[in-house]
């Protein structure tokens, strides 16, 4: 079974999967949609109460949660929509002051 990581726009037709099927879970992670971002949210740890109210509202699952605590943004995938900034009741997420 061919892996998505081996499929790209250089492979010959013989190697494209039958019917363009994919046989693995979650291969979209290979696409780094973080490149789309024009603005970047920043997590201010000191202000964070770990209420997790930001996490379910990220359309890009880019607020990783482990053992009930959120971690640093997954900037490989965060598209910078800013929903999390407005979701946070404690102002613990702000726009990064980019140059």
């Amino acid at each position, binding site marked *: *079974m061919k892996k998505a990581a081996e499929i790209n*726009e250089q*492979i010959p*037709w013989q190697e*494209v999967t*039958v*019917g*363009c*099927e994919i*046989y693995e879970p979650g291969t979209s992670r290979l696409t780094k949609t973080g490149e789309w971002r024009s603005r970047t949210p920043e997590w201010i740890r000191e202000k964070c109460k770990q209420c997790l109210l930001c996490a379910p509202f990220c359309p890009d699952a880019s607020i990783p949660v482990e053992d009930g605590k959120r971690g640093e943004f997954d900037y490989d995938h965060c598209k910078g929509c800013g929903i999390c900034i407005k979701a946070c009741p404690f102002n613990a997420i702000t726009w990064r002051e980019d140059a």
Partner: protein
Amino acid sequence: MSIRERLSGNEAIATAMRQINPDVFAMFPITPSTEIPQYFAQYVADGKVDTEFICVESEHSSLSACLGAEAAGCRAVTATSSAGLSFMNEVLYVAASSRLPVVLAVSCRALTGPININHDYSDSMAERDSGFIQLYAENNQEVYDNYLMAHRIAEHPDVRLPLMVCEDGFITSHAIENIELEEDAAVKAFVGEYRPENYLLKKENPLAVGPYGVSGYYMEARVAQAHAMMNAKKVILDVAADFEKTFGRSYGFFESYRMEDAELAMVIMGSSAGTAKAAVDELRAEGVKAGLVKIRVFRPFPGEELAQVLSGCKAVAVMDKSEGFSANGGPLYAETAGACFNLEQRPKMVDIVFGLGGRDFTVEAARSVYGRLEQIARTGETGPLYTHMGQREA
């Protein structure tokens, strides 16, 4: 041991389905294919099959449900005709490009309008480029036999394409003829089980079907699909060889009838071939070198093989039982003429559109075609290449 029976084409298909016992049958009624799901519903009601039988709300949905079931890991079937097949159009292409080997029985019927329930190939010919394999039959026996071979061809790993088993509406679907049926166990053994490597309900790994394909992949996917259709040629012959070994009846891409030394030939499909064969026999008795080729496999089209058979002829009439409105002849003519173009010595070739919406085709009419071919062979003049036959004229 074969069982002698008397069945209509529809009942022959339903019987084959019962013997195969598909996993899912999604149905929607339309004349003249309706009897197929009706017979099958009774098999379900009587416990003769353990198929999941779903009565959906349209043909678009019946084929869509088959796609879902097939992708989920099941053998799925349905049947339709005419407008029902047209309504499936979009999903036919999806079935083929998703490489889901659904088997679809088609009782071929005219398309509207005016609305008409009788036979011609307007419906199936309109779907000739959908990516389905298409098998045609002259009579009930051939319909039954084609159906027994259908799943093995469609599901073969080198093919994985959906397939239409076509019969002539009413003429074949409803006429009761003698037929040799095979034993249930022998059919089951011949057809085998369907066990795809990947399917939606597989536990070990998920399967994702039906992506958006950017131009970086679309061309490659289509070329792969085109090759699958080319691969189908060998598989069709292999399955036919095994069928002959198992059940004794022989099938190829087409049937050559008295073609050995034929100078005048007809290329024709379905039940009309039976009528034309009677004309050929009469003409042969009179010393005319007449023959005919009856196309069984229209998709994939056996162009090279057909050209070879026609190469010795002086004049050929292609008999189209559908009107493509190309103003240049019907679909069978386009295929046949194209196939013969590169022959060193090619016959003169005309197209005759006939039998639309159930218009009769008689032995006399067939003889008149050979009369025209004889004149073409003698004079070298084809006259109009594209004509209609059987209509009233002012």
